[in-house]
């Protein structure tokens, strides 16, 4: 995917803080490296562990979290269809995770003002991938391993090794937004 003014920015993941601070809303960004999936149920568990002061099964520092619950991998492929789910359902959890070092999240759709404020406060970014393009996005996943909560099935936390995974910066760390309607009024 290309942006309005040229080819995509290449971002190694986990990214450095400086690299995230350079991103601007509307930039096309291709990710190469390690990211982790987590959606509703995994977030509930992570927050419960944090509140209980217990150790987490993943290190949040520097992490890129992809809101995704893939389909089962066919033989010979690392993953099934693997597009983003609606991010706003994770809005209740995201500020806490950013406070614990999460550098970026990937999903689809606008989010709450509280999430945007957390991105600015912690120097993080929110990226979107094309929703409903799970077959295409799966072509950019080279490896997939369940690393926590396997009992949650599609909602388990998976570590993905991605190459040139196409995203767009929806909210940057400076308050910028790429959405036609900047954030959710009801969230």
């Amino acid at each position, binding site marked *: 995917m290309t942006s309005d003014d040229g080819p995509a920015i290449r971002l190694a993941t986990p990214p450095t803080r400086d690299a995230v601070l350079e991103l601007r809303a509307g930039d096309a960004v291709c990710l190469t490296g390690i990211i982790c999936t987590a959606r509703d149920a995994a977030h509930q568990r992570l927050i419960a562990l944090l509140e209980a002061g217990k150790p987490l099964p993943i290190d949040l520092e520097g992490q890129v979290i992809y809101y995704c619950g893939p389909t089962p991998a066919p033989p010979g492929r690392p993953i099934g269809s693997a597009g983003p789910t*609606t991010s706003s359902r994770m809005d209740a959890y995201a500020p806490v995770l950013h406070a614990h070092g999460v550098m970026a999240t990937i999903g689809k759709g606008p989010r709450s003002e509280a999430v945007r404020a957390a991105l600015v406060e912690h120097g993080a970014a929110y990226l979107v991938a094309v929703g409903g393009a799970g077959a295409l996005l799966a072509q950019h996943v080279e490896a997939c391993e369940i690393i926590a909560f396997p009992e949650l099935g599609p909602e388990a936390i998976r570590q993905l090794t991605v190459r040139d995974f196409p995203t767009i910066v929806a909210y940057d760390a400076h308050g910028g937004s790429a959405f036609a309607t900047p954030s959710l009024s009801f969230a």
Partner: protein
Amino acid sequence: MREIPFETIADAVASACIEANRRLPDDVVRGLETILAFEKHPTAREVLRALLENARIAVKTGLPLCQDTGLVVVFADLGQDVHLTGGLLEDAVNEGVRRGYREGLLRSSMLARPLDRASNTGDNTPAVLHVRLVPGDTLRLTVAPKGGGCENMSATWMLTPAQGRRGVVHAIVARVKEAGGQPCPPLILGVGLGGSFELAALLAKRAAVMGPIGEPNSDPELADLEAEILEAVNATGIGPMGLGGATTALWVRVEFYPCHIASLPVALNVQCHSARHQTVEL
């Protein structure tokens, strides 16, 4: 009286689940190509191209179009002269979903108990089945896997007669704006007009998943309403994935039913661009 065995239904549903999840219907592909021809927003164009490419990759690789392979909604038009043998229709449909989702490596997204996150049924059953008795001796099944993201943005309103047509258009456009990029626009909007609280919602779902995109309503007044809603929704500028553009919706379809003199029930079923459905006739 014509007999249709349990196994025939289960096999048909299993195949339809797999096919629906891998192949974007031709009318949806044409719809995406049509809006790409006039969309000018650069990001929107990239998104639309990605969606068309995704449809090609899904067919080529056998991967599902979307990782959310949905809750399976089945519309069954059952001929009155059909005798089902070997078991119940509902069990046959669920057996088909079970096999289709396992064999097709489709995602299991159903919780047995809505408040228990750990109660995934593991085979995407049960389906939501709507049966209608019709004349004849055939069974027509439309299998429509429905994603959670767009279903979540659907709504039902009990408007007053005074709100009328303007109220209908306003409620729908406001809802689409509120949803923004969350339900994966470009959308297909199914509108249920009239009936009762529960029937309006069912009409809206039927309107969202049945019938071809690009074919206006045979009722001129409803065709005009569809066109007005489509224009108003596309004027919001939300665009594909909410990132701006003139193509927030692919199509609007309205189904209606008579209603009480005191009421104006209206329902909106929001369908994402991955408008998957397969119809089989047994």
